[in-house]
């Protein structure tokens, strides 16, 4: 229960959190299956090469389908506003990046850069992965650079995620942000100190809360359906 001093303010909507957790879940599933395909020493540990490759591809397809579902059913206006917040950098951001004192908005400059880098990595993963997939069918589309790009992205994205996890679960000053990605709200006093330029949302009205709960339910059902479908397809594709 929040006391009078410990008020929570809404930082992430359901739609935003779903986008985050879909990316997080897909990233680790793709990393695990990708590493199993990549490291010769792991061959056969999690099934035949055909099965692991099928799992890798179905997770990738599930990732895109889940994101499309969120875009179709979720709060697109909110996502668009978030994208604009991430794109825009001002002179305070420049000062913050030079490690000077500067008030920050809902996202600090580092968070914005991380989001930009991960979005670019996701786009390039999809591009190089699609080329690898197509190169199996038409060997004229197998380029030296494709696997190099896919591998390089894996290393870069994994390093970024390690840093992200450190700040989210270990580093004491930034750790309170984790609550925002789990429940949506963060401590008001903490947010005033770390995100001084961010005007926190007024407490949500009852009606909006209900509709947001409904949206959560719908999206969770959709996400579960994608998951079940994925498992079913992987099982069906096994020998």
């Amino acid at each position, binding site marked *: 229960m929040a006391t009078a001093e410990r008020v929570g303010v809404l930082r992430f909507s359901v739609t935003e959190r779903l986008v985050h957790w879909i990316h997080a879940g897909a990233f680790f599933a793709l990393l695990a299956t990708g590493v199993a*395909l*990549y490291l*010769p020493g792991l*061959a*056969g540990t999690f*099934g*035949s*090469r*055909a*099965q*692991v*490759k*099928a799992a890798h*591809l179905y997770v990738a397809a599930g990732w895109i389908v889940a994101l499309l579902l969120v875009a179709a059913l979720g709060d697109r206006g909110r996502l668009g506003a978030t994208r604009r917040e*991430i*794109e*825009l*950098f*001002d*002179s305070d951001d*420049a000062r913050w990046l030079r490690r000077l004192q500067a008030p920050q908005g809902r996202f600090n400059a580092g968070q*914005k*850069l991380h*989001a*930009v*880098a991960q*979005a*670019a*990595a996701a*786009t*390039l993963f999809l*591009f*190089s992965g699609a080329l*690898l997939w197509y*190169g*199996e*069918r*038409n*060997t004229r589309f*197998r*380029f*030296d*650079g*494709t*696997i*190099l*790009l*896919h591998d*390089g*992205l894996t290393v870069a994205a994994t390093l970024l995620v390690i840093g992200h996890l450190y700040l989210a679960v270990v580093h004491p000053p930034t750790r309170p942000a984790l609550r925002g990605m789990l429940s949506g709200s963060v401590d008001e006093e903490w947010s005033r100190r770390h995100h001084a330029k961010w005007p926190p949302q007024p407490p949500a009205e009852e009606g909006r809360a209900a509709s947001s709960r409904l949206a959560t339910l719908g999206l969770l059902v959709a996400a579960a359906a994608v998951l079940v479908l994925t498992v079913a397809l992987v099982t069906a594709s096994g020998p």
Partner: protein
Amino acid sequence: MDHADDPTPRPYGRRAFLGLVGGGVSSLWWGPAVWNAIATNAVPASLRGALPSPTAGWRIYTVNPPMPRFDPATWRLQIEGRVRTPMSLTYRDLLSLPRAEQRSDFHCVTGWSVPGVRWAGVRFRDLLALAQPMPSAKGLAFMSSEQPYVDSLSLGQALVPDAMLAYEMDARPLTREHGAPARLVMPQMYGYKGVKWVNRIVVSDTVELGFWEQRGYDLDAWVGRSNGYG
């Protein structure tokens, strides 16, 4: 113009995103050359083997390092099993057999390829003519001196026109990392079929599972029609 104290937010994030995506896509063209330069100059030789090497995109895999060394004086190629005349060929014997040459693409199951590799070696028709497989013979197991690596072809697969036991690559004797002195070349299948450091060919009545096939890879490793795309 100096925007350092300009309070107006600017969409640097979008520019960074587009720049990263553009850089990543264009790396299909410049990436390999840059990576080769880095791998050649900045990576210790001991690690280089696991990375794309400077020789046009090869990645060298071993299952039991260090790689075997080739001594022309003592090396022998045994051909045995279900054959009328078991053989033991020296390196000079191998070179004296009818020589075949070809240019073919090399495809690894993990996604990389090396186009237009020039190979010279011996066709299996000529090699098997010496040992004479028995009528019941169905498969050839190629054993590597890097134990326990082995892989197999059916007799029919070994006789496709572009399969060979190669002893030259790109107009030079095979180097140690490419399987000196002799390796299997089977361009229509993924590279794990291309057993390096071959020193024994066992003819048998079955097609035995190879090293990777015991670990879940397909026995028939056709490029584009195996390992998940049957």
